[in-house]
């Protein structure tokens, strides 16, 4: 057991302190709280030539559906101020090929493997999970509930607490591994969806997914991305994502994993102080593949300098008693 904070803070400066930055989420131990986000890190192998994957807390692989998906026609992406829009269309190899072709590489790593799962009906989600259940080397599932439910007239699962509860409960029953749920930020009150997912059995919540946005070419008066609307990610969304993590961490008991524009250890620490037990690095992987490893080192160095373990920092935000209502 680590010494109480007050005691450690009194330890004379200069005494070596090795912070514990490991974290347990949904019964799985992570060597550090930094994961790479779904859709920004392929199936892991693509980055093996660039960084030491074993230094990551975990890898959340590209979203997997029961059947392979082609994705959207180009153009699929567009850069905006401090961010980017994407509408890839969930192109993926399908659950079977993932298990056969991509999982063996991931199994050989010390880092944790989380598989992001999506579908267009509740049955799609369940079927994908059932196929993935047979693959060994998966530590947890992360349910992407930002897809439109084709049967419910295109209503997005993640926008409706009732649909959220339905898909989470069915997936939880099917899953032989811990189930995380990745929430969409395109809602009025994210805590409502967070509570719905928690009540339905989610073991942890990841937030946030991308914000729906768009961009227009004024010369041709056409949308910059073929899908017309697209998901905004990158540093531009960080303050909004942080606010949502802060609100959600206070509204649920399950661990919250923070994501949204994190590009440095300082960004990650803001999310952790706001209540995130771990963080995911997304868009930054595209332009600076070593970001996650720098964030791990930065968190460790910060904890050492403050003589704090990671667990002391999670949710440690100090709100002045005189502050206005946090939800304004």
């Amino acid at each position, binding site marked *: 057991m680590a010494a109480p904070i007050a005691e450690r803070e009194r330890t004379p400066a200069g005494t070596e302190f090795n912070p514990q930055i490991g974290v347990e989420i949904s019964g799985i131990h992570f060597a550090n709280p930094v994961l790479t986000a779904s859709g920004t890190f392929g199936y892991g192998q693509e980055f093996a030539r660039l960084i030491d994957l074993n230094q990551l807390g975990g890898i959340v692989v590209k979203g997997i559906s029961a059947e392979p998906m082609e994705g959207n026609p180009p*153009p699929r992406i567009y850069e905006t101020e401090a961010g980017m829009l994407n509408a890839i269309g969930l192109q993926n190899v399908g659950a079977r090929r993932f298990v056969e072709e991509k999982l063996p590489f991931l199994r050989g790593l010390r880092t944790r493997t989380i598989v992001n799962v999506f579908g267009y009906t509740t049955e799609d989600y369940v079927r994908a999970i059932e196929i993935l259940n047979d693959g060994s080397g998966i530590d947890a599932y992360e349910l992407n509930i930002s897809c439109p439910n084709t049967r419910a007239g295109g209503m997005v699962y993640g926008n409706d607490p009732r649909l959220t509860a339905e898909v989470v409960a069915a997936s939880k029953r099917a899953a032989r591994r811990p189930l995380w749920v990745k929430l969409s930020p395109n809602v009025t009150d994210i805590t409502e969806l967070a509570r719905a997912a928690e009540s339905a059995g989610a073991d942890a919540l990841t937030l946030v997914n991308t914000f729906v946005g768009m961009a227009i070419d004024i010369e041709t008066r056409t949308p910059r991305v073929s899908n017309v609307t697209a998901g905004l990610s990158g540093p531009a969304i960080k303050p909004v994502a942080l606010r949502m993590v802060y609100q959600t961490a206070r509204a649920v008991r399950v661990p919250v994993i923070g994501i949204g524009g994190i590009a440095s250890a300082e960004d990650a620490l803001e999310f952790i102080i706001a209540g995130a037990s771990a963080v995911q690095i997304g868009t930054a992987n595209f332009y600076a593949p070593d970001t996650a490893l720098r964030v791990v080192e930065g968190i460790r160095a910060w904890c050492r300098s403050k003589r704090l373990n990671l667990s002391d920092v999670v949710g440690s935000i100090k709100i002045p008693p005189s502050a206005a209502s946090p939800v304004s």
Partner: protein
Amino acid sequence: MTRMYDEIVAVTENRPLTGGHFLLSLRAPRQAQATRPGQFAMVRLLGRSDVLLRRPMSVYDVSPTTRPPRAAGKRGANAHRQPEILQLLYKIVGRGTRLMAELRPGDSVGLAAPLGHGFFAEEYLEEARRADEVLLVTGGIGIAALLLPARELATAGIKSRLFFGGRTRADLVGVQDFESSVAGITLATEDGSKGHRGYVTEPLANYLERHRGRKFLLMVCGPWGMLRASAELAKRHGHACLVSMENRMGCGLGVCLGCSIRVEGTGHGAYERVCTEGPVFNAEHVIWAREEIPKI
């Protein structure tokens, strides 16, 4: 696949050319030595969070250091022969390239290179060997992808010819760099300020018509319309055609799937990544009917 290096490298020169074009020289020995003709680089402007993504750019040239070799010592004399400088030819088209134009010697940029499959990937070699002559066809900044292939062909003793088009004569940058490697150069400008007035695919069509019965291989890089027109000409005359495709890219590393283009007959599904399966494709595999790639 060749090794890729992702490093911070120094700018040695950023030379303005005509028509808003620049030639950026980077001291990047590892990238320069690993680059094959037709491969590309991802360039990152450092210290800016408003311009996030790296820019994909063809490797225009690799060259030994511009410094004279050290007078003394065998080692110095040999070392200068290995390429140390990697050059990128670019045109100001948006925010990223406008900022690139401000780079000065001594500044640093992020450079990931070499990337993608070039013109001489294993599956294309056979076509090059069978051809009587290789036609290098390009429009605008597409010229940046063709200098290294032209040199490689000359070294291998394969005859080649350059067809180069632009809107105006100021767009025709780098022509002199090709002179020692190609058997002939045909220029075209839309405004008629240099060479043929019109599209470069017009003199190309005439050339193919005049030399029926000969076996050509086309290597093409340029705007979508020019690629498509060249691919159609090649098909009509029964010649093989390799196209170097351009697209917006999020990562250049094969993970964002942002640069995918529609293909058929490759055995890899409906979409392939320009950054990984490309940028060079067999024109027969590209779906040209759908104008899916707009002005980038």
